[in-house]
């Protein structure tokens, strides 16, 4: 039983070679403008983009405005609560000079969260770029060159069956001292964490890219390109990579989210950066012992991590929809 109201006038279907097909469009449409238009319809993704921009500005431009040294000890002003606590408890120790309060050594928490965010985001982006680079390289090589396929994919499967978090912990603990000696305490740990996360999270990207490259290889445009004598390296950079860009971008957002979480988890387990060197995970870890009296010190860095990861995940969701030509434009 079909309701008569539900019948809509059917649009005339365009046939091949119809000259009026593009008559309504007066200018060529840029593909990336289409992607952006689709991306904007995703509310979560727009929130994610907004928040990621905000938090990036907060940690990069913020320290220029809020010009307080995050490591400066001020014992007289220790354990200051955030100012909003004064609304509830009028006798709480608050101070306009430290709007988010200070820790048990009198270090300003807002300055620490800015500095910690710089490190966390820097680790996240660098590790993600490394993982995506490795994943794309291995995926393209395995998908394009049949001789390498078996070997590289067996290797990927092997790495996937390693217990990664324990191995990452082992790497952190055992290679910490030599790298610190070689590059200095901060630089050394940074390199170690980025390398550790990078080489333990490329596998999914590699699998996706390999699958897509193998499917693309059978298409006519690749055959056409090969028939005019395109060498393999140009084949990859010119014809294959642009076509696997969208899955790479989506897995890059996922990679950024996991990298930020992994770095915080390492810091939380006490195996990340040294203690005088704040990251969001480290601030959270240092505050856990005193969270009964000062819950806000746990909540702010935790919220920063969670909201950043949430917004990155939403951006990934929006990108997946926006980059899929079957969904775009509907």
């Amino acid at each position: 039983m079909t309701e008569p109201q539900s019948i809509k006038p059917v649009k005339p279907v365009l046939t091949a070679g119809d000259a009026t097909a593009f008559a309504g469009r007066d200018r060529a449409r840029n593909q990336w403008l289409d992607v952006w238009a689709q991306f904007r319809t995703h509310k979560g993704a727009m929130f994610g983009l907004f928040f990621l921009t905000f938090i990036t500005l907060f940690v990069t431009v913020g320290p220029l405005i809020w010009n307080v040294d995050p490591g400066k000890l001020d014992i007289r002003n220790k354990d200051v609560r955030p100012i909003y606590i004064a609304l509830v408890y009028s006798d709480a120790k608050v101070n306009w000079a430290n709007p988010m309060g200070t820790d048990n050594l009198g270090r300003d928490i807002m300055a620490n969260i800015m500095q910690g965010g710089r490190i966390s985001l820097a680790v996240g982006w660098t590790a993600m770029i490394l993982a995506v680079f490795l994943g794309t390289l291995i995926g393209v090589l395995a998908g394009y060159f049949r001789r390498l396929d078996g070997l590289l994919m067996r290797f990927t499967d092997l790495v996937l069956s390693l217990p990664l978090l324990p191995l990452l912990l082992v790497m952190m603990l055992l290679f910490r001292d030599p790298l610190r000696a070689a590059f200095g305490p901060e630089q050394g740990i940074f390199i170690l964490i980025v390398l550790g996360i990078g080489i333990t999270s490329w596998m999914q990207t590699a699998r996706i890219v390999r699958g897509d490259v193998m499917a693309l290889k059978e298409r006519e445009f690749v055959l056409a390109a090969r028939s005019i004598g395109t060498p393999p390296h140009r084949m990859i950079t010119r014809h294959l990579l642009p076509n696997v860009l969208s899955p790479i971008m989506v897995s890059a957002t996922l990679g950024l989210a996991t990298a930020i979480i992994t770095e915080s988890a390492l810091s939380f387990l006490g195996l990340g950066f040294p203690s005088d060197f704040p990251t969001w995970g480290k601030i959270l870890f240092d505050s856990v012992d005193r969270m009964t009296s000062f819950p806000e010190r746990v909540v702010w860095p935790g919220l920063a991590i969670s909201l950043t990861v949430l917004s990155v995940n939403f951006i990934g969701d929006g990108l997946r929809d926006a980059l899929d030509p079957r969904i775009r434009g509907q």
Partner: protein
Amino acid sequence: MLTYTLRRLLMSIPTLLFIAFVIFMLLELAPGDPMANMPLSIPPEVRQQMREALGLGEPWYVRFPLWLNQFFIVEPQYWIDNAFGTNFADGAQRIISFQSRSPVFDVIAQRLPQTLWVVAMSYVVGVLIALPIGIISAYRQYSVFDQAGTFISMIGFSVPPFFSGVLLIVIFSVQLRWLPSIYDTTHVVNDWDSFVFQLRQMIMPVMVLALQTTAQVSRYMRASMLDNLGMDYVRTARAKGMSESVVVMKHVLRNSMIPVVTVIALGVPSIFGGAIITEQIFKVNGLGQLLIIALQGSDIPMVMTITFLLAVLIVMMNLIADVLYGILDPRIRYD
């Protein structure tokens, strides 16, 4: 199917050997020294003797086969001896922890129940919550329930366990004082009150781990249900006049469970990884905490054994997932 399973089992042996080798060499190449925590006043020759007493005097190509022998032959022998009162092991050298000087497997056996209680329970709870959410979300796609489910699973993906756990402690233990923040593993359940206490102390760690599971499994369940709801056989079933509950719960659900079951099997090892962090938050003295303590004390045999056991778990779960897929879906035949 049986030949396939046997072939996969045989193939997993070289994989596991390779993984053991990778872990062993990582620990071997690493410059961390198990003697680093000893007092500096120990003379170098005594230090050398202590190293040899720990079995570190030999080169790696002697110690690696020794470790394999201990792990795959001696330890199962002890296990059989304990179970049946036989004497296969005959006093052979077991894998000894550097820190506690007791056999590694004894320590693991002490710690395993705590981890299994929390981890296994959370996985079961997580899956049990996830399945109905996934089914309803798919059946009522784009409804308020579906939007809420999507949002909650997004939060489950994004909020790391070390924040959700700490947040729960702040809310329920510090502010409301409803639940204990520390998991008491010495607690013995023998009557109703102690059972209630056990439940109360398990709620938070279980829910923290279950949130991660729920987020993942409910997404897969929803996607799989959506795939199947659009199929022709669903229309046929409806056209035959079957009731909606039979169509959804019998036809669609059974077919949708096939990929979800494998996802559930594949997720088991990662939940053990997540337990490392959760145990640290709630002070559960399980395997994860044991690993962290062993790492900090450069207890190489302990780290090696726990990490390798996790690798065995991953490889076995991959195998089980593949075999289950073949059993549940008759269209898939590996031969």
